[in-house]
């Protein structure tokens, strides 16, 4: 029975992903910060799919927690999905360096260092799939969310580098760019329905990407074209736009 490690397991995307893999018979390792939420999600997964679930308290921005997680896993997972992300409030990110630091560390430093360590372990074994949830916000810095976006840009580059490093091996790296998703992170925002995915759709996209060894996945295909256009706008023009 294969095993999936979900990091940031209490997020809506993570829970949907855990259900999708459990339905296919995966054992689950759930890592997150909120013990009570982890226990509730684990109980649901065990009852729903009768799979083995272990929970691991871990704040990925803390080096000690990362080390404890890696040391405490009952087995090295076959697949890891990292859904850790923190949007923050852009204005607060601009004015309070401590808040911005938290956003940068939660979206880049913590996840990248954890996935890097797992990649080392996968390299020793020779197999493994690493799935990182990055963001279309990392494709080009914009005034509305560049603190979050720059950290996600780092994450995207890190995943791209890992994929290149393991390109000729049995280790596979997937970058997921969900676009807008109807989750707690975006609660209260007015999002265009056509560009907004449900957590189940993201979970299914991740499942397919792992099954079919895809590299970079846009959950709603329209985002690929939108971001291609946004990336193509000349900087002189781009800096005057508000998008």
């Amino acid at each position: 029975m294969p095993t999936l490690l979900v990091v940031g397991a209490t997020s809506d995307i993570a829970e949907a992903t855990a259900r999708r893999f459990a339905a296919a018979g995966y054992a689950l390792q759930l890592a997150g910060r909120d013990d009570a939420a982890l226990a509730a999600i684990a109980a649901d997964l065990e009852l729903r799919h009768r799979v083995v679930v272990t929970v691991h308290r871990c704040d990925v921005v803390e080096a000690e927690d990362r080390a404890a997680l890696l040391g405490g896993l009952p087995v090295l997972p076959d697949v890891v999905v990292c859904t850790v992300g923190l949007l923050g409030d852009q204005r607060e990110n601009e004015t309070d360096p401590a808040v911005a630091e938290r956003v940068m560390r939660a979206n880049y430093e913590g996840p990248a260092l954890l996935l890097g360590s797992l990649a080392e372990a996968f390299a020793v074994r020779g197999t493994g799939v690493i799935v990182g949830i990055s963001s279309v916000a990392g494709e080009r810095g914009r005034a509305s969310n560049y603190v979050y976006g720059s950290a996600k840009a780092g994450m995207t580059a890190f995943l791209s580098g890992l994929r290149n490093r393991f390109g000729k091996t049995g280790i596979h790296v997937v970058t997921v760019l969900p676009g807008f998703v109807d989750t707690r992170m975006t609660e209260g925002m007015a999002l265009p329905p056509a560009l907004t995915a449900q957590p189940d759709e993201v979970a299914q996209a991740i499942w397919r990407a792992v099954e079919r060894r895809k590299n970079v996945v846009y959950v709603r295909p329209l985002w690929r074209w939108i971001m291609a256009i946004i990336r193509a706008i000349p900087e002189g023009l781009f800096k005057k736009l508000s998008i």
Partner: protein
Amino acid sequence: MLDPAGTVARGNGRAYGDAAIGLSTTIDMRRLDRLIAFDDATGLLVAEAGLTLAEIIDIFLPRGWFPAVTPGTKYVTLGGAIAADVHGKNHHGEGSFRRHVAWFDLLGPDGVERRCSPEEYAELFHWTMGGMGLTGTILRAAVRLRPVESAWIRQRTIPTFALAETMDAFEASADATYSVAWIDTLASGRSLGRSILMLGEHARVEELPAKTAGTPFARRRGLTLDVPLTPPFSLVGGPVVRAFNALYHARNCRRAGEALVPIDGYFYPLDAILRWNRIYGPRGFVQFQCVLPLASAPAGLTAMLSRIAASGTGSFLAVLKRMGTEEGPFSFPMEGYTLALDFPVGRRTEALTAELRAMTRDHGGRLYLAKDAQMTEAEMSALDPRGLGFARWRGEHGLAGPLRSHQSERLGL
């Protein structure tokens, strides 16, 4: 947290009227769908209120468990099933949903979560089941599932040719686990009330043919159809219904007797057609469901069926069912007969359903709030004086202001 101007929780949106539309705010409960615990020995399931019966069946039928009571669609949530106190084809034997609820956690407008059961907050417990979401928001519940041996129903089909015969057949099958009749609402004269009575029992493993007995829980799911768009007018007119009804009755007369049928087909024939409501066109349809007490049911049903047949506005989905004893302070069922009908929306049907409501009142019956979209406050207080008691109780407990749906406003609840 709650909007003081009027909030109500919404499950999977399967009530036919405005019961789950908050006056100013509606709480979407579907994301709260986690399983919390299950006891293999007793069948007691604890889950969050947004879990649907469809999910419960998908998860637990392969393990030998099925909802103790299920309405005609499995796409309802636990919370919705409790709030509407739904009933099923086994009401005469097993009662409504409430009889199988051990407890639930209710979030009041005061922000306090209360575990309600027959022992704790008993009054709140009983008003909530059938209380249409107007006593608080159900967060999680413990309900009993029933053990079954297969995903098959042993169905006995009994065609009848007149109302008295249909009712006699119901009375004679009180020991059947499930019973329901499709009734031809356009038949008149001597054929008034002709029906197809369908009795059902959960098939035991030894009753299955050899090739299915090995995998008794494998579900045979027929084709799922969809109505991808709304036609500009209703496809369900009088002549269509008349032709359909004649064919359906004749076809089932030939099928009289016993047959093994898949569990989904027996309980949820309409769930196989996604968005079936669209066949009624852009104006949609209204549901009418009443229950008449046993003593006045023959006269009441005769009057109603004669009126419907005369109108020529037949109902495709006409269901007659014998109900068992009344339970709870504000639940729909009472001992007698319940008749459920669909009509395309239009001026003619508005007059027709108003007459049917008056007939229900004259025969001492009441209407099902989960189906109702049309009753007025005056009709409600004449038909079901229990509503006045419910409204008073809500007022006394600080629930009447913050918990309001469009239905509760319309009916003065």
